[in-house]
């Protein structure tokens, strides 16, 4: 030990790496104006960019943006009855509360997500919405804050953790019941109304929530040792992946109608969601299978050697590692599923995109096509970007201790 310490003292001091600073002028010359061809390319592309940006700005300043606030309710929740809008808000409160609770008890990513959600609702409340709407918006932040406080107090308590998981799982059916209603207690909304963007959201959440577990089971089934299970899963995956979603949706909307008697025919909305789920599950399965294949054989061997059975090996050792590897692919699938909900419009379910078209059909708002599409683009972008941001953060936090 003493010898070692003496040796350490003779080691040279660690130096900082040299910092290279390139002057702006030299950088420009090296990267943009290094040859005649580059000079021409730089000038032309700058001119192009300026023209496009200028044109965009000019359009944006002169655009009739008032079409958005005037039709905001229609875009977001369609013709959802005004007297029942509290049900939508309550759902929002529940989710804000749960987000806050998780943020308070876990910190890290969940905390960031919950505070961001609360901040966004406060920012929105500052915008010139009707006072009622503003009140509801502030309520979202309040619900998140209350959840945060409770979660913070319950940090590290075991039953709090269990309650949190149970609440999250229960929140899905509760949301659906709240939004759509149940016979006898809450008036059923169903297809009497159009749902607008709310439908895209519900479709995505239901699709993601169901297609993920189904996809994992399919992936495991495809690698099963039982030939029958393997063949069924493989056939399902390959058939679904070979057909475009839009034709599956048409089949669900028209063919089922012909095949099934009217009294057991599920609602068109439910059929559409089932179709998207079934479609997405096949892709999910292949993503998960990619992860499963990346797990080295030594992991199975080590787990068998300590006496774990096959089910435990899969749940405790293989899946946690495999899923972590394919987070980017899975979230990519979530995002495309969310986008795919706009295809509902083709089978006569009025989601955001259709509503836009009906607004444009209104004489008062004729010619507002760009404004509406830009708005839709922004709404989708915000949600999809959030998903991909969360996935990147998850990769980082879960990557702790990775090989």
């Amino acid at each position, binding site marked *: 030990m003493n010898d070692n310490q003496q040796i350490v003292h003779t080691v040279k001091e660690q130096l900082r790496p040299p910092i290279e600073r390139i002057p702006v002028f030299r950088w420009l010359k090296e990267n943009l104006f290094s040859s005649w061809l580059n000079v021409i390319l730089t000038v032309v592309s700058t001119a192009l960019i300026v023209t496009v940006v200028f044109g965009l700005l000019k359009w944006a300043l002169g655009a009739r943006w008032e079409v958005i606030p005037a039709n905001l309710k229609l875009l977001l929740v369609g013709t959802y009855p005004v007297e029942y809008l509290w049900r939508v808000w309550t759902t929002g409160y529940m989710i804000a509360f749960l987000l806050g609770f998780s943020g308070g008890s876990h910190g890290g990513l969940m905390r960031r997500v919950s505070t961001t959600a609360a901040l966004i609702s406060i920012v929105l409340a500052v915008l010139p919405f009707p006072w009622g709407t503003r009140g509801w918006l502030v309520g979202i932040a309040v619900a998140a804050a209350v959840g945060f406080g409770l979660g913070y107090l319950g940090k590290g308590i075991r039953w709090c953790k269990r309650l949190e998981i149970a609440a999250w799982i229960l929140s899905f059916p509760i949301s659906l019941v709240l939004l759509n209603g149940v016979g006898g207690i809450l008036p059923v909304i169903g297809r009497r109304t159009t749902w607008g963007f709310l439908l895209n959201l519900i479709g995505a959440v239901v699709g993601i929530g169901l297609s993920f577990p189904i996809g994992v089971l399919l992936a495991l089934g495809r690698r099963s040792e039982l030939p029958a299970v393997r063949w069924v899963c493989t056939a399902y995956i390959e058939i679904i992946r070979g057909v475009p979603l839009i034709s599956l949706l048409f089949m669900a909307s028209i063919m089922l109608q012909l095949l099934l008697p009217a009294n057991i025919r599920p609602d068109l909305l439910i059929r559409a969601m089932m179709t998207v789920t079934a479609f997405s599950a096949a892709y999910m399965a292949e993503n998960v299978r990619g992860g499963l294949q990346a797990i080295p054989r030594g992991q199975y061997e080590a787990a068998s*050697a*300590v006496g774990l059975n096959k089910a435990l090996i899969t749940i405790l050792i293989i899946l946690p590692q495999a899923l972590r590897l394919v987070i980017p692919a899975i979230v990519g699938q979530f995002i495309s599923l969310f986008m795919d909900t706009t295809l509902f419009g083709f089978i006569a379910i009025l989601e955001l995109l259709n509503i836009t078209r009906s607004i444009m059909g209104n004489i008062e708002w004729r010619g507002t096509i760009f404004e509406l599409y830009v708005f839709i683009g922004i709404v989708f972008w915000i949600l999809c970007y959030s998903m991909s941001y969360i996935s990147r953060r998850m990769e980082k936090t879960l990557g702790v*201790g990775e090989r």
Partner: protein
Amino acid sequence: MSVTSNEGIIIYRDVHKWYGDFHALRGITFTMQKGEVIVICGPSGSGKSTCIRTINRLEEHQRGQIIVDGVELTNDLRNIDTIRREVGMVFQQFNLFPHLRVLQNVALAPFWVLKMKKSKAEEIAIQLLERVGIPEQAQKYPAQLSGGQQQRVAIARALAMTPKIMLFDEPTSALDPEMIKEVLDVMKELARSGMTMIVVTHEMGFAREVANRIVFFDFGQLIEENTPEEFFHNPQHERTKLFLSQILDY
């Protein structure tokens, strides 16, 4: 199914194993007593790893009989489960679970397989980490440890099931030279405590010091078995002499 065990804790009778057409084990017969430490050596591809991997059925043998602690290895899953609980294994590549902390790596099997309480399983895990000399690493992930430390965790993980037999499949072959000793020291301590051990290794110093018997494999056959003294100073078989001259006279 049960066979009288007074004749040895591990019994191999004419065991054969094929990989496709390749005849990997060609009639292995030997008996091992409780408390013995056997070192298996031989050139690579000689079937030594395959042989010890048939003991806990990571590989299946196709002919002959393997009896571990009175239980014959067949396709009966219950027998395989019983034997895996009694046989611990340490691998060349450590094969720790990278997504679990060191403590969880060790406590996992007692909790899920032996159905111990979590607190009890973790207490045992801490004791074992102390035994292999790295209790301070309990909350780290495997990737944050050196190779030697990881292999010691792997030994603790195997010991957590309180096995009757420990198998070591080239436990030091993937280690930097500086870390080999810390792992061999743990194995020596284990041998002195009376553990029944089969060790596949090229560490002849370890074999000389710790083994009761050395077994030499080539071409899927057991060529020679002897005490270390006899094995090194008076090898019987020409192939053994050649092997020893190649690894010792360097």
